[in-house]
C-alpha cells in the first residue's frame, strides 16, 4: 500500500507556503487520525502505523511539517515556530473536512498537539503523546542542539547512514528493514550527488541561538479535555518518569505506556506499540 501525496497551501506571516501530507486509507472514512513527526523527521516515519490503521478503516494523514521532507522551506527562519505549525495543522484539519480528528504526535508533533488541544473548542478527540509532555528537560534539548541544523554533507549513502544512526541510536525499537527505511526518509540527495538531512537546517534557529532551558507548559495541561495516552521511552532524556507521573494524575489524566530499553523517541513501528495505540484510538470516547 502506498500513501496518496497531497498538497495544502497554508498562510503564515510571510504569506502562503505549500505543505505535503501523506494520506492513507479511505478518504471518506468517518475516523481520521493525524500523525505528526518530531523536530527533524517527516510524515514517512509513520508508514507502518498508518498502513495498519488504514487496514482497519481509518483515514491516516501524516504531514511533513513546513521545512521538512517534501514541504516548502520558509523564507524567514523566524517563522519556523509553533504558531506557524499550529496554524498549519488547523488548516490541515479544515482540509480533512473540519470534523474533530484523532492525533498522534511524536516529540514536536506532541507539543503541537498539546498547543491545539489546550484551546477552547479544540477539534481533537483523543491524543497520543509519544515521548513528550508539558515539561521538556533541558538536558535532552541540549543533546538535540548538538546535532540539529548542522547542514552536513555525506559523500555516499553509507556515510549518511552511519551519521543518522549515531544521532538516533536511542530511537526504537526497529528491525533491520525498518532501520534502513528510517535512514532513507531522513536524507535527501543534493544536486551534486551528496546526501544531507531531509530538512531546512534553519528550522533549528531557536535552538542554535539560545541556551537550552526546561520548557514548561504545565499551564496548558489542565486545559486539555481529550483523553491522552502518553508513550514513554524508559531511557528518554526529554520525558522524565516524574513528568509522566504528573500527566497521569492531573488534568486529562493520561494513560501511560512505557517502552523499556528505548530512549527518545519510540518509533511506533513494532506491533506491540501499534496495537497499544490502536486500542487507545478505538476506545469509546466517554465524553
Amino acid at each position, binding site marked *: 500500500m502506498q500513501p496518496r501525496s*497531497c*498538497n*495544502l*497551501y*497554508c*498562510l503564515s506571516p510571510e*504569506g*502562503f507556503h505549500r505543505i505535503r501530507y501523506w494520506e492513507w486509507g479511505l478518504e471518506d472514512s468517518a475516523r481520521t487520525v493525524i500523525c505528526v513527526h518530531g523536530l527533524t523527521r517527516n510524515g514517512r516515519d509513520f508508514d507502518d502505523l498508518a498502513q495498519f490503521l488504514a487496514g482497519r478503516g481509518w483515514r491516516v494523514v501524516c504531514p511533513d511539517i513546513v521545512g521538512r521532507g517534501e514541504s516548502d522551506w520558509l523564507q524567514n527562519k523566524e517563522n519556523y515556530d509553533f504558531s506557524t505549525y*499550529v*496554524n498549519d495543522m*488547523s*488548516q*490541515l*484539519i*479544515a*482540509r480533512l*473536512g*473540519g470534523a*474533530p480528528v484523532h492525533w498522534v504526535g511524536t516529540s514536536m508533533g506532541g507539543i503541537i498537539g498539546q498547543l*491545539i488541544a489546550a*484551546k*477552547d*473548542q*479544540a*477539534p481533537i478527540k483523543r491524543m497520543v503523546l509519544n515521548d513528550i509532555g508539558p515539561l521538556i528537560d533541558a538536558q535532552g534539548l541540549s543533546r538535540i542542539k548538538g546535532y540539529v541544523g548542522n547542514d552536513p554533507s555525506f559523500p555516499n549513502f553509507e556515510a549518511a547512514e552511519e551519521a543518522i544512526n549515531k544521532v538516533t541510536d536511542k530511537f526504537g525499537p526497529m528491525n533491520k528493514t525498518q532501520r534502513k527505511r528510517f535512514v532513507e526518509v531522513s536524507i535527501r540527495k543534493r544536486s551534486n550527488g551528496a546526501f544531507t538531512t531531509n530538512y531546512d537546517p534553519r528550522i533549528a534557529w531557536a535552538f542554535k541561538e539560545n541556551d537550552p532551558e526546561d520548557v514548561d507548559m504545565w499551564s496548558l495541561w489542565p486545559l486539555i479535555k481529550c483523553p491522552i495516552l502518553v508513550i514513554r521511552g524508559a531511557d528518554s532524556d526529554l520525558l522524565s518518569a516524574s513528568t509522566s507521573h504528573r500527566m497521569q494524575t492531573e488534568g486529562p489524566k493520561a494513560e501511560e505506556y512505557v517502552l523499556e530499553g528505548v530512549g527518545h523517541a519510540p518509533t511506533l513501528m513494532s506491533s506491540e506499540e501499534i496495537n497499544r495505540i490502536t486500542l487507545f484510538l478505538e476506545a469509546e470516547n466517554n465524553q
Partner: protein
Amino acid sequence: MKCFHEKRLTVLAGSRFINIAYKDWGDENNSNVAICVHGLSRNMNDFDELAAKLSQRWRVIAVDMPGRGQSDWLDNKLAYTYELYEVVCAHVIALAKAEKVTWIGTSMGGVLGMRLAANGAPFAKLVLNDIGPFIPAEGRKHNQANFGSDPIFKTELEAIAYIKQTRSAFGPFTEAGWLKFGRDSLRQLNDGSWTLHYDPGLASKVPITDSDMWELWPKVRVPVLTIWGEDSRLLTAPTVDRMAHSGPKTEVFSLPGIGHCPGLTSLPEISAIANFIER
C-alpha cells in the same frame, strides 16, 4: 432546487477555535472551486443566485465571516481584523481539494481577495465586486453610516423597508430580489422582533480614512475581473482606470445606474462572471 449543504468549519482564531458557517454548492469533488466572500455587513446568502447558476459546473463555497450570519461572534470585538479574516479564508481555501481556487469577493470580500492574492494564495482567478486598491474615506464613511447601530424592528416588513432605504445603491434587484436581500440581512430575536444579521460589535471605532492598498496591486498575479457599479462611492472611475492599466490589468464589467454595490443576481452579471472564470 436546493443544491447546497449548510456546513460548519472549525477555524483557529487566536486562543480558541470558532465555528464558521458556509454553503457548499455543487459537487464536493469538483476540482473547479469558486469561493465567495461577502461585504462588510453582509453574509453568504448574497451569493445564492450566482452559486445556483455556477454550481452546475463548479463547486461553490460561500462563507459567513466571523460575526456575520451563522458564524460565531468573537468575544473580543477588537479581534475583528483583516488579519483574522485572512486566517479564516486560508481555512476555507484548505477545504477545497484543488491546487487552485477562484475567488469572488464583494467589497470587503474583494479586499480579502487582493490581500490573499498578494500573499501568494493558490488562486486561479480573482473577481472583485465593486472594490479596488483604493477606497476614498468619503465612500467608506457613507457605507458605514448606519453600521453597528443595532436597530430593532417590530415587524419583518419594517426591517426590510429599512434595509431597502439604507442600501438603496445596491442592485439591480427585482422586487422579489429586494425581499430576499432584506430577509437575508435580518435575524429574529427571542421576543419576536427583528435586527440585523451581524454582531453590532463589528463596527470599528477607528476614524475612517482613505484606504490605500496600491502596493498590493502589482503583487496580484492572476487574471482579475472587476464588476463596477458606475455610481459607486467606494470604487471610483480613476481607480478603475488605474486597475485596468497596471498590475494584473483587470477586465471591467460596468453597471450603469448602480452604486455600491452590484447584487450579482442579474443575468448579465452572472454571465459576465461565468464567462470570465470558465474562459
